[in-house]
Structure formats: structure tokens, C-alpha cells
């Protein structure tokens, strides 16, 4: 597929008022309201060219259908990376990851995906092809359209090309798997918040046995991912070990081989379903409240006699909660009531995965944003006939 072909398809759909569902790698199909039954799928995967690889500028331009794996492999040749950290990178596309507003666990160090975007080509609902920004790393020339499209869930246009800043890959990485015995979780969270070498990622995990490495102790486990120079690594390792030791954590297992794979498995777990009998929520908020937010959600799941698997991003405050039951029917009997109760507790909780048919009945986006009316006006101006992913995004955008 070419951008012109994409433009022509959209222009036709716009003229005929045919709703379209924009599809990338389909790895985040568990997000958002389900597509309308009569919407025509429009796959962007054919837009899979690395348009311009500019290692000497520390930038790269790729089409929207390029997979995260293909992007990472291209960059690895130059020893650089773009830290998107979305699940299933072999299938996930750059366009889909950005459109879905995916936020990864290393963003406290390297910024959000929107922070590394420097330019874009969008195809609007009426087929208009418009560029914004460029291949330079600083640019104040008109509105920052690229960032406006990122996180718009494909409702403003189709990201056909995106230009990105890259960063050097770290000299060393190391993953720690830490079993937490009784009465150590809270102190381990405090340790993570006070380390001199801030981890590139750190999670408190309970469950997710099939996906995430390490073994749960009485209070689950922690995974800590360090990225740093050779000169810093051993000192940082000692610091982490002794601080955890003082917090009552006896053993810290180092994973030095297959570190990257292990890290990626943890991110894949965010959207891992248990057949059709699970729903996964994501909750954002302040880091210092993440532990309490997770414990509240776990207690609630227990009240409903649902199994809870959790991942808490201790650096950014995200809580991932997967609730499941013995079978789809059992889950179906409770999930709507649980969904209400969870939103009383965490109004902005949103669904990121789940193959259960009841998913469509849940508040998949949680609370609407404060400026929803303005967003609606923007949507109407960009897609007057509402053909792009109609009704799928927050607030019906």
C-alpha cells in the first residue's frame, strides 16, 4: 500500500460516509469500544517502509505500519533505540502504538512516545495528506500536530509516517527478580523511590506466573530493570541489594542473560488474556499512591471472588489489574458489577485487554476528560462524517 492509496480509500469512505476501522498489528484490540459491525477494516500494515534512517542525526522516519520489532532491529544496528515498550513488538505497529497512546515503563527516564515524535504525515478522513514537523529535533513552526495525533486512537486521521528522535542504547542492562516475603512490600517500594541509580523500569508483580519471570513470595515479587554504563552497574547492583536487604528481602536474583526478552515478556503480560475469562484494566496516577491503588483494586476483586493478577509500575504509578474467573460464564455474571465498583474506586480505570464478550458492556475508557467538549469539536472538524473508528474512543470521540 502507498500513502496515496490510503488517501484514496479514505476519500472514498468519506464521500460515501462509510465507517472504517483502522487496524495496525491488532495487538491492542482489547482497548476501546468494539468497532461498529458495518465498519470496514482498513489495515495500515502495508505501509511498512523505513522511510529514512538517519543515525548521524539520531533520528529515523518510518511508516505507520512498521512493526516495533523492525524499528528496533534497524536501530540496533547503530546502537540506538526508541523506548516505546509496547506489548507484542513483533506484531505491534508504530502507528498503532502511537495512536493508542501506549505508555511504557521506561517513560520516567526517556519520556513518553509523544516526547520523541518530531514530525508526521497524517491522512485525514477526507483523504487530505498533511505533514507536520520534520526531521529536525527542535521545531517551532505552527501547531504541534504530530503530538495531537498521538493518543487520538485513530479518530483524527491515520498516521502514515512518523519521524522520531532516537537515543543511544545503554551499555549494560540487568534485571533483578526479587521475591517478597511477608511485611516487605511497602519497604521495597520505599527502596525503589530512593535509589541513587534510578531503575529504567521497576514493577511489583503478583501472579502472571505464565508470563513474567520470578517467583512470588508472600507479598508477590519485584522486577527491577537497570540500564546504565559499565562503570555504574556494579555499584548500582550493590546499592539495590543492600537496600533491599535492610528492608528484609533476603534474596535478589540477577538475570543477566535473556534480560531483554525477560523485560519484553513482562510488557507482553499487560495484554495477556486468560482465554475468554479475563478482563485487564489499567489505572494511572501518582507513583506514591500506586501501591495503595493496587491494594484497593485487589481487595475489591477479592470481594467479588475474582482472581486478581497485578503489575504495578513503581516508577510511573501505573496499575495493571487482570481479573479472571473459572470460566467465561462465571466472569460474565460478575464483571459488570465489578466494573461499576472499580470505577467508584478509580474513576479513570480503562480496559486494555479482554476477549470476554461482556467487554463491550463495560466502561472501557473510564471517566471522560475535562475538556471533552473541545475534543468533540476537534473531532467534528477533522472527521465531519465520523467515519474514523466511530464511537470507539473515550467519550464517543
Amino acid at each position, binding site marked *: 500500500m502507498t500513502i496515496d492509496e490510503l488517501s484514496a480509500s479514505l476519500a472514498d469512505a468519506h464521500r460515501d460516509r462509510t465507517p472504517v476501522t483502522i487496524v495496525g498489528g491488532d495487538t491492542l484490540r482489547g482497548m476501546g469500544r468494539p468497532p461498529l459491525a458495518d465498519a470496514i477494516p482498513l489495515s495500515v500494515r502495508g505501509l511498512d517502509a523505513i522511510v529514512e534512517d538517519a543515525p548521524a542525526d539520531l533520528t529515523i522516519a518510518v511508516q505507520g505500519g512498521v512493526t516495533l520489532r523492525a524499528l528496533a532491529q534497524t536501530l540496533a544496528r547503530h546502537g540506538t533505540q526508541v523506548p516505546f515498550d509496547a506489548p507484542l513488538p513483533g506484531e505491534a505497529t508504530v502507528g498503532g502504538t502511537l495512536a493508542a497512546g501506549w505508555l511504557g515503563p521506561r517513560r520516567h527516564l526517556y519520556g513518553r512516545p509523544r516526547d520523541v515524535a518530531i514530525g508526521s504525515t497524517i491522512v485525514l478522513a477526507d483523504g487530505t*495528506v498533511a505533514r507536520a514537523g520534520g526531521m529536525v529535533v*527542535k521545531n517551532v513552526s505552527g501547531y504541534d500536530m504530530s503530538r*495531537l495525533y498521538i493518543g487520538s486512537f485513530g479518530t483524527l486521521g491515520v498516521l502514515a509516517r512518523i519521524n522520531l528522535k532516537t537515543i543511544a542504547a545503554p551499555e549494560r542492562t540487568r534485571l533483578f527478580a526479587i521475591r517478597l516475603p511477608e511485611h516487605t512490600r511497602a519497604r521495597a517500594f520505599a527502596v525503589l523511590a530512593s535509589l541513587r541509580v534510578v531503575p529504567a523500569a521497576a514493577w511489583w508483580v503478583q501472579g502472571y506466573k505464565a508470563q513474567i519471570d520470578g517467583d512470588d513470595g508472600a507479598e508477590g515479587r519485584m522486577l527491577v530493570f537497570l540500564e546504565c554504563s559499565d562503570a555504574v552497574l556494579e555499584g548500582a547492583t550493590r546499592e539495590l541489594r543492600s537496600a533491599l536487604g535492610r528492608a528484609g528481602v533476603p534474596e535478589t536474583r540477577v538475570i543477566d542473560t535473556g534480560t531483554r526478552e525477560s523485560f519484553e515478556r513482562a510488557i507482553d503480560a499487560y495484554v495477556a488474556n486468560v482465554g475468554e475469562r479475563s478482563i485487564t484494566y489499567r489505572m494511572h496516577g501518582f507513583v506514591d499512591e500506586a501501591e495503595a491503588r493496587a491494594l484497593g483494586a485487589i481487595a475489591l476483586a477479592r470481594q467479588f471472588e475474582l482472581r486478581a493478577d497485578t503489575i504495578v509500575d513503581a516508577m510511573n504509578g501505573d496499575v495493571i489489574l487482570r481479573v479472571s474467573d473459572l470460566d467465561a460464564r462465571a466472569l460474565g455474571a460478575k464483571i459488570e458489577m465489578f466494573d461499576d465498583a472499580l470505577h467508584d474506586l478509580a474513576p479513570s480505570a480503562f480496559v486494555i485487554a479482554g476477549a470476554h464478550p461482556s467487554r463491550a458492556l463495560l466502561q472501557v475508557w473510564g471517566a471522560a476528560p475535562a475538556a471533552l467538549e473541545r475534543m468533540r469539536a476537534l473531532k467534528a472538524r477533522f472527521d465531519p462524517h465520523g467515519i474514523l473508528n466511530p464511537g470507539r474512543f473515550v467519550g464517543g470521540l
Partner: protein
Amino acid sequence: MLHERLIDALGADAVKTAPEDLAVYAFDAYTTGRLPAAVVLPRSTQEVSAAVRIARDCGEPIVPRGAGTGLCGGAVPTEGGVVISFARMNRVLAFDPARRRARVQPGLINLDLSRHVAASGLFYAPDPSSQKISTIGGNVATNAGGPHCLSYGTTVNHVLGLEVVDERGDVFHTDVDELGYDLTAALVGSEGTLGIVTAAWVRLMRVPEAVRVWLATFPDVESASDAVSAIVAAGIVPTALEMMDRIAAQAVEAAFHAGYPTDCGAVLLIENAGFEDDMNACESALARIARERGATSWRTARTQAERDALWAGRKGAAGAMGRISPNYYLQDVCVRRSTLPKALHAVDEIARTYGITVANVFHAGDGNLHPMLCYDKRDRTQVQAVIESGNEILRAAIALGGTVSGEHGIGFEKREAMTEVYSTADLATMARVRDVFDPARALNPEKIFPSGAACPEVKPQRP
């Protein structure tokens, strides 16, 4: 009518109407515009709303204004209108050291924010050279950069949410952590054309454990820019990587005695922050590249005082130019970092062709050029030569795949150049955003968009 109503709503001390009082608001740091119809100095968001409503009722456009240090006419009225100055809305409204955030009013001076939070070991990263006087509101509106934005990112990377007064005087809020469209990103860098920022949540950073500053000298600008390209190509992004050519270094030394060598063609000022354990390796990598590219000396600033002096000199460079020229025009373009040597060569050729003295002090690591074109404004031929060479520099940057503003913005000054980087469809797409936020074009009219491009009809492109 306008004056009375504004005075009724805001009080006489908050409204300026006398021509001699209005005169200063016709300027920014470079451009001259027209006299506004009135200037208001609100103390609160409610007063901003009231002023907007009254101005609109009276058919006057609105021009938001921070410190007026902009260089492209962004804060300058072009057709009368009501200037809203944020000089009295300059407080830190909330500071949460544990969460490393602050909520501030738009008139707060950039440096005052870092000073306010310093005792907690924090700082606000975007540091335009104008940071002693420019405001957070102005910085947000221009997505301001600065030397340390090389590794920390520009203003947009540090704004977490905004309170905004719209063209009807209504208030709305944006928050980067909410789902939905990233209105924060749309507003940052919109130069007051999409809304008036009345408060901002900003992200603060921890003061790094170790900081080193180095000076490398080069025989000429070409070899220095070659070194910059090579550093970036090696994947090294120090915290700051600034260049100064001989003319600029001489002016800075004369003004500040900061410790810059004045007998070389160009100086690189390099800073790296991070872990002490990494500093030696970083220094040897940088020094090796510098030497390979022809550096004639390499020096480490040993003390905090020495580092501060070098930075004071760098940030005061524009002011120091007064010593060598009665006037200067500060151009701002950004090119790909690998093309820096070519871009500087082009600037040099253009200056030569027009017989103009040019001094370069700029954010080299970002590829963000700031040629300062020296002239005497009493001499009409010099003025003309500066205007033409300024335009030539824009064209040269575009030809190298660059852009017409790296950080100062488009304002009034550069709006016609927008058509040279963007197609009609590109601009019309931006105009759709304007249609939603400012359908009447009452907020800072005649800025950013080229004349005649307000609402072009665009057909889908089908080449």
C-alpha cells in the same frame, strides 16, 4: 467604551490607555508593531476572562504578553487590540517536591521557578538564554528551548497540564495524564493563537549528582561544527553542547570576562550531568572526537564559580553583542545535526555576499543555529541587507531539510516563510485546529499563519 468597561471590571490600576503607556507594548525584543487599544494587567484568571469578554464585545482582538522578550513579533499587536500582560500573575501557586511538580502562573519568570524549588534539590529544565526575564507563559506559548534542552527536551516535554482561557472568556483545563486528545501539546507552541494560558503544571527535575563543563577550541567554525556532528553521530548526547564563534567569544569576554578564549575560530561549551562514575569516560570520548576533528585545546572548568561564569557568558551573549554592533538581528533556524557544517558554511557565504558581519552563538547539539547579523539601523542599505540575508538563511536551512524556527517561533515576523516549509494542505490542517479554538481569529491574529491562508479550501492531494 472599551476603556471604561475594562476599568470597571479590573480597576483603574490594571488598565493602561494613555498613548505613552501603550507605546512600550508595541515592541518585543526585536519587532515593532502597532499601538494596542488598551493594555490590561489582570491579577487572576477571572480577570483574564473578564478582559477577554469585554475585548470581544468591543470587537477588539487579544494579544497575550509575557515579558516581551520574543524575537518574532508574537506579543506585538498588529491591528490595535487588547494586550493582556501577565506581569501581575507571577506566583508559584503550588509546589509538590515529593511529586516533583509545581503549578505556576504564566507571568512567573523562568529562573524564579528554579530558584523557588532549588532548596528541594530540584530545578525546572527548560532554560532559554532569556530565562532571567522571560516568563513561563511566554515559554509555553513558544515551546521555548535552551542550552540544556539538548538532553532534557524543550518546554513541551515539561508541561503536565494547563489552565486556559478561550476566545469567549471561558476557562478549560488540559492534563497530559487524561485520555483523549493531547490538547496540552496543541497549546504549547501555539503562540497565543489557541488560548490564553493562565496557569501551568510543570514537571521538575532532580539536580544531578555530578556536573562537568568543558571548553574545546577550534581553528574555525567548520571544524567545530564537524565535531558536533561527530559527537551526535557517536550517539553521545551531553546535557548541553553550545558553540560560539570568534566574534561572539570576543564580545562575551569583553562584557563578562567569563574565561572564553578569544584567539581561536570557535569554542564549544560542553556540559554533561549524571553520575560521577561516568564522567571520565564521557570526557575522554568527547575529547577524543574533538581532537580528531581538529580541536586545538581542551579544558575542564574546575570549580563551580568557573562553570557559572562560563554559563553566564553564554546566556548573556546576545546582550554582549551591543559592544560590537549598534543593532543585530538574531536569526533562528534548525537543521539536521549532520548538516551543521554545511549550514554554517552557507551562513558565512550569505554574510559575505551581503557584506554583513555575523556572529554565531547557538545550540549546536540540536542543530539550532542563531546567526546574529550585525547592522546599524540608521543605515537603510544595511537594514535592507540584513532583511535579505536573514531570508536567505531561512532558505538555506530549508534547502538542507531544516526548519524556519527552532525555538523562537513564527509570530508575525516569519509567517510568510511558513509556505516555504509547509504545503497548503499542511497549513489548512493546522487551521482546522484554529477553527475549533478560535473560529473568529480573535486570539493573536496575524501570527503564525501566512496572510491569505486563514481558511483555504483544500482538496485531497492526488498526485
